[in-house]
């Protein structure tokens, strides 16, 4: 996400990144609500198709999408497995372990697949949203909607400093390795216990950093007046955008109603 600024300004921005953040937010929300209203695999595939179009038109870096899929798939595999084992109905396979029977139900596989697709849609929609709406635009949109600036700005700050904090974790880890305290060579359980002392330098450094940032912000008069001015102006949503958002909402509502009735 931090690379977004570079991609837009290098001319690799797309028509979609110029659209009003609220429009994009509405469309994404509509998609997510629709996804939660059903477990119909065909519907999901259609939604994924729409997302694919958005990704192409929005020129969203494929690496982001691949990364998120990579994160989601293991989780989904796990969910599918549970569903397969716990759902009733006709089996696709069953095995005997000792005297205990394990059933893999067909319905479970289908349900698992559906949930996988739902999670994928959720993940890709959110990735698309954050790829199309840069933090400054998001901040500005939230402010226009009435959120006090300091809260709207918190997101930009977090985005900016999270990578730095992650780097710090890595440095602290290395520093302790140099003293013989190597958590990477332990199994998962021991690792979770051994990582606790490492939190101390991390927290202290975060607090120091926060204090330093706060001072720097105060010195730049942050929060000193209520009517802050803005360099970035959001173009009001065009008629076309409003129509699109309306279409998405309507389509989503109709779909949800249909799913409930059938």
């Amino acid at each position, binding site marked *: 996400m931090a690379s977004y600024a570079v991609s837009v300004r290098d001319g690799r921005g797309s028509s979609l990144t110029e659209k009003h953040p609220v429009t994009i937010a509405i469309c994404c929300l509509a998609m997510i609500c629709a996804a939660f209203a059903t477990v119909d695999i065909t519907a999901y595939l259609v939604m994924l198709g729409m997302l694919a179009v958005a990704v192409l038109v929005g020129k969203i870096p494929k690496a982001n999408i691949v990364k998120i899929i990579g994160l989601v798939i293991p989780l989904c595999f796990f969910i599918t497995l549970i569903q397969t084992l716990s759902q009733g109905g006709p089996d696709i396979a069953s095995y005997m372990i000792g005297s205990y029977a394990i059933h893999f139900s067909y319905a479970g596989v289908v349900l698992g697949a559906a949930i996988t697709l739902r999670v994928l849609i959720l993940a890709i929609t959110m990735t698309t949203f954050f790829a199309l709406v840069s933090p400054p635009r998001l901040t500005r949109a939230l402010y226009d909607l009435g959120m006090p600036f300091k809260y709207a700005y918190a997101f930009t700050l977090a985005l900016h400093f999270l990578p730095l904090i992650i780097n*710090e974790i890595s*440095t*602290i880890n*290395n*520093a*302790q*390795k*140099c*003293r*013989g*305290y*190597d958590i990477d*060579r332990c199994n998962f359980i021991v690792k979770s216990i051994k990582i606790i*002392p*490492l939190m*101390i*330098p991390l927290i*202290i*450094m975060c607090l*120091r950093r926060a204090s330093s940032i706060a001072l720097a912000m105060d010195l730049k008069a942050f929060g000193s007046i209520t009517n802050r001015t803005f360099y970035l102006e959001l173009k009001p949503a065009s008629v076309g955008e409003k129509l699109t958002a309306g279409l998405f909402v309507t389509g989503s509502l109709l779909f949800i109603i249909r799913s409930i009735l059938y």
Partner: protein
Amino acid sequence: MEKSSPIIKVEDLTFSYRKGGSLVLKGISLEINQGDFIAILGQNGSGKSTLVRHFNGLLQPTSGRVRVKEMDSKTTPVSKLAASVGYVFQNPDHQIFCASVWDEITFGPKNLGYSKDAVEANGREALEIMELTGKEERHPHSLSRGERQRLAIATVLAIKPDVIILDEPTGGQDKARTEKLMYILKNLNEKGHTIIIITHDIELAAEYAKRVVVIFDGGLLLDGHPRDVFLEEEQLHQTFLTVPDIFAFSRAMQLKTPALSPAEFVAEYKKMKLA
């Protein structure tokens, strides 16, 4: 100890952070001998910190080999190499996390399995060398920044490694503190420790280091006695490093041996006058 075999041997080291990514280190070969006192110079981004992280296994070569006392850094874990190569990080707060100074100092030796007596003795010695005796029970974060820096060094000293690496140990310190620290390092070097400092302070490097290594654009540009390295003006110019004023001044005055410190200059000048 066999003086002829180097304590750290770097053979044609190349390194990139990501597979197929750009090379940060482009084929470096280097030998560090027991008893060396080396200053590593180079701009930020030249690869000097990356290189030094290979000396204790924090990073592993993409190609080439790094051997510490015959242990291959690719197959030996960092925690094992830590007994031979100590690394003091630039920011002491990255290393400090115990509740008392004493716990902090004995943390390393305990982790590395030293005997109870050794832990006690090493700890006391480290405290004394870094002038922290009497502060054993203090909480590390109640110490001043300078004291925390000394503590970080003490925690590495307590391990008694053959090689001690320090990353910018004199940052932001005044003359007195800097001289004190360098005096301690000189003593340790005389006792047999190999000292490697990464520094931006070229006057410091000139005055105390017996060997200077200049890294530029991922490669080893210069390696030798400070006097010899500083004579390579054109190459140094490439890296935006400038020789210490006193060295340039000595050459402008056509002194027989260019001085590496004001004291040396004064001595040379007096010799000249007597001749």
